């Protein structure tokens, strides 16, 4: 039914580290990102946003802005096509169409601060920004609802009056609970009754932002023929096309999306924000309209990862076998439904084989920005809770944390939390590699002279690699190079990893395959760059196309040599005739002879793949805590991860390191610090405080390769796994250092000091024996 592949011992291109194809443009400043585009006649837009987190819009007057010199167009929600309250698939999960339209521009109600209410296009940026301030909006402020507990409390203000919640399959009205689901396997009560040690803890997490350096941007041109062109930094041009068509009620074929270079996304650049606004402005003034989001608005109104409350209870028997696990996860969706709680539930128990499990998940609407995917959505939250509890159990039972994880490890055939059986997975290999790593074998010197305390922690993490649709076109050039056209946004080196897979098949150097990321009319449909799917799925499409190209070139060689195509061999980059050993041409030589063999050689590869086996990581971290100030320093960090096969190891390492550092930020600093009015108080890079060069040591990487039989080269998704374990790993290290269990993120200095004070108070009241 599904093709399975075997690993090859040696590769010529795969596993090497060529310079990426788009590298020169990116180190010389020549690469064009969305904000760099300047079209003839282009004008600027600016967006007016709500200063309230929860309010009714009672009146709006745009007349002053319309009269302002230099203003070309003003739009409000009235200019948006009427949306129905129905579920639609807009390329990245399903959303309620009305919610989606209100998220782009509020019609009558504000559900998060920073929600757009109007926009202006003007001759230049300054004019647009001045004019937008002249729009008068009157609000009736409402009580903001800021936590899952507040939202679920009896008598809580209802954020979305039309929301129909789903409580285990029953419809609920007048609620902030969008969804409550349950997974239940085995007999949890019986499982807990067999346990010797049971640990149950509740964890709280704040929202965090993806933190891409490039703000959202869009240029739109809506012409007189009702054709809409969009240029934007996005993780998926086709997803933008689908969202635009759905929101603006256009046929998809009327929308052409050109993906510009993208300055980071991490999931946050899958939803559209500015694109529909730029389009409506352009429709009114018939000029290309550019919008670039200010950083404050990026924080206040674009997708954070959900915070929330998670409770985990795990039981272990005397032999160290996990007997049961139960968990509740209430995650913040933001102003509209759709948090990552579903994926969190699929990940939470993934490193383990647990016979009896329950998971309850709640998707809760609160007056905060609508959450969006953020690198392994839901997994960092789930693993923080689970891996902290596992650490505590290991301590109780006196088990080595790696031995314990190995003893309870998930393997092929183990069921994850939602009941689905794992295919081929590499958790055991990862744990064994972690135990052999220089870091784990080293002894952490805990003797400090300055009163600082040190500790070591370890945690596991899991994420899927999603499959879905990709298409690639290859064309042979007569100089022996090959043009590769793909539709996957290159967010971190995927042009190289995709081209290398084609080059491997064709037997030519990586740099002789020339990749281009095309617009939505230059290549067939491609799903988003997300879900760790790009190197896996688009690489698979490149592989398929390359196989076809080899077949086509065999036919051409047969024509040149007057042989039967079935008598042409292709090995190590050389075409030869079975019946005449004199007849040999390498790829380059043959390419030069294609002129009289029947037209240009062009082929396509097209795939629609199932989600692959997924991948595991184990992270080891040493921390040092200043007990006077509560400041935490990362002394050493090692990532061990199963990547299936590292196509370009440098960029694989880069993904691992980058994901970990985002996780370190999440653990130690980053949070949406909300005032009681629902304003994010730290909506600048200065105050949000992402890690800098000074906060980090070198990040050590151990690449484990457990072949994925669902991919010709064994690739597994790489990008997301590394953000799953760090919060728990650091929390466990802090426990090792201080003896306190931190149950709320971030582990900021004040919180650590509070925990230490509570610890010393508890010690003082304890009777001495």
């Amino acid at each position: 039914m599904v093709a399975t592949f075997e690993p090859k011992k040696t590769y010529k291109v795969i596993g090497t580290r060529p310079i990426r194809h788009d590298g020169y443009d990116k180190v010389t400043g020549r690469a064009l990102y969305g904000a760099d585009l300047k079209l003839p006649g282009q004008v600027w837009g600016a967006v007016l946003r709500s200063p309230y987190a929860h309010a009714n819009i009672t009146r709006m007057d745009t007349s002053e802005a319309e009269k302002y010199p230099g203003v070309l167009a003003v739009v409000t929600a009235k200019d948006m096509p009427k949306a129905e309250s129905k579920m639609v698939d807009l390329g990245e999960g399903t959303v309620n169409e009305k919610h989606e339209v209100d998220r782009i521009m509020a019609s009558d109600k504000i559900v998060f601060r920073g929600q757009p209410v109007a926009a202006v296009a003007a001759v230049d940026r300054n004019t647009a920004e001045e004019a937008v301030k002249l729009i008068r909006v009157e609000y009736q402020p409402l009580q903001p609802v800021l936590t899952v507990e507040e939202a679920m409390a009896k008598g809580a203000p209802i954020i979305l009056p039309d929301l129909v919640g789903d409580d285990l399959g029953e419809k609920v009205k007048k609620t902030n609970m969008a969804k409550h689901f349950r997974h239940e396997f085995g007999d949890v009560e019986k499982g807990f009754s067999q346990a010797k040690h049971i640990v149950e803890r509740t964890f709280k997490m704040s929202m965090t932002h993806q933190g891409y350096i490039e703000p959202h941007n869009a240029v739109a041109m809506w012409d007189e023929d009702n054709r809409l062109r969009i240029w934007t930094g996005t993780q998926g041009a086709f997803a933008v096309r689908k969202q635009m068509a759905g929101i603006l009620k256009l046929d998809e074929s009327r929308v052409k999306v050109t993906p510009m270079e993208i300055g980071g996304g991490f999931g946050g650049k899958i939803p559209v924000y500015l694109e529909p606004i730029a389009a409506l402005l352009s429709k009114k003034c018939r000029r290309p309209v550019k919008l670039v989001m200010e950083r404050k608005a990026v924080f206040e109104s674009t997708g954070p990862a959900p915070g929330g409350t998670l409770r985990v209870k795990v039981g272990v028997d005397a032999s160290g076998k996990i007997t049961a696990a139960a968990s509740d996860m209430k995650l913040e969706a933001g102003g509209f439904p759709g948090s990552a709680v579903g994926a969190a539930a699929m990940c939470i128990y993934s490193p383990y084989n647990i016979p009896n499990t329950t998971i309850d998940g709640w998707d809760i609407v609160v007056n905060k920005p609508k959450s969006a995917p953020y690198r392994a959505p839901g997994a960092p939250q789930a693993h923080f809770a689970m891996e902290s509890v596992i650490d505590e159990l290991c301590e109780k039972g006196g088990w080595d944390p790696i031995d314990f994880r190995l003893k309870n490890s998930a393997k092929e055939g183990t069921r994850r939390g939602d009941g689905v059986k794992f295919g081929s997975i590499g958790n055991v290999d990862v744990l064994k590699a972690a135990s052999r790593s220089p870091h784990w074998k080293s002894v952490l010197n805990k003797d400090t002279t300055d009163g600082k305390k040190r500790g070591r922690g370890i945690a596991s993490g899991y994420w899927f690699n999603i499959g879905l649709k990709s298409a690639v076109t290859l064309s042979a050039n007569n100089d022996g190079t090959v043009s590769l056209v793909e539709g996957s946004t290159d967010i971190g080196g995927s042009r190289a990893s995709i081209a290398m897979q084609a080059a491997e098949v064709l037997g030519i150097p990586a740099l002789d395959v020339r990749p281009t990321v095309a617009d939505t009319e230059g290549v067939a449909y491609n799903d988003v760059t997300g879900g760790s799917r790009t190197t896996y799925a688009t690489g698979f499409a490149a592989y398929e196309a390359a196989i076809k190209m080899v077949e086509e070139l065999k036919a051409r060689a047969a024509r040149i040599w007057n042989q039967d195509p079935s008598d042409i061999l292709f090995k190590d980059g050389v075409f030869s005739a079975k019946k005449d050993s004199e007849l040999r041409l390498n790829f380059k030589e043959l390419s030069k002879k294609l002129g009289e063999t029947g037209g240009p050689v062009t082929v396509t590869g097209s795939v629609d793949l199932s989600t692959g086996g997924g991948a595991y990581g184990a992270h080891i971290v040493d921390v040092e805590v200043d007990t006077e100030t509560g400041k935490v320093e990362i002394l050493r960090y090692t990532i061990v991860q199963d990547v299936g096969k590292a196509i370009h190891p440098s960029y694989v390492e880069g993904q691992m390191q980058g994901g970990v550092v985002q996780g370190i930020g999440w653990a130690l600093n980053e949070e949406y610090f909300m005032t009681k009015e629902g304003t994010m108080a730290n909506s600048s890079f200065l105050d949000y405080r992402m890690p800098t060069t000074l906060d980090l040591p070198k990040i050590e990487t151990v690449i484990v390769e457990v072949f994925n039989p669902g991919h010709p080269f064994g690739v597994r998704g790489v990008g997301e796994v590394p953000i799953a374990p760090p919060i728990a790993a650091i929390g466990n290290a802090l426990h090792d250092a201080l003896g306190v269990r931190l149950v709320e993120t971030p582990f900021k200095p004040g919180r650590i000091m509070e925990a230490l004070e509570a610890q010393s108070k508890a010690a003082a009241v304890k009777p001495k024996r």
Partner: protein
Amino acid sequence: MPVVFLPFNLRKYAGGARQVVVTGKTLGELIAAMETLYPGMSAHLLEEGRLRPGLVAVCGTTETRQGLRQQLDEDTEVHFIQAISGGA
């Protein structure tokens, strides 16, 4: 015959059963058979003659990419799960 692992929400239609054994050579046939045995169930699985948006069927260990036309192995297990949304 394929074994269907019922999502918690659908168990009430099958008298609380967690798994049901249902005939069907394809996923479409299987869901039709489930509806015959447990009326009301398919409304949670289908919309306009297709799998509901956001719902994924897993046959064996891999999700189907062929929708209701998916051929089912004799003793395969079938799960209906939420689609995963990615973020890297």
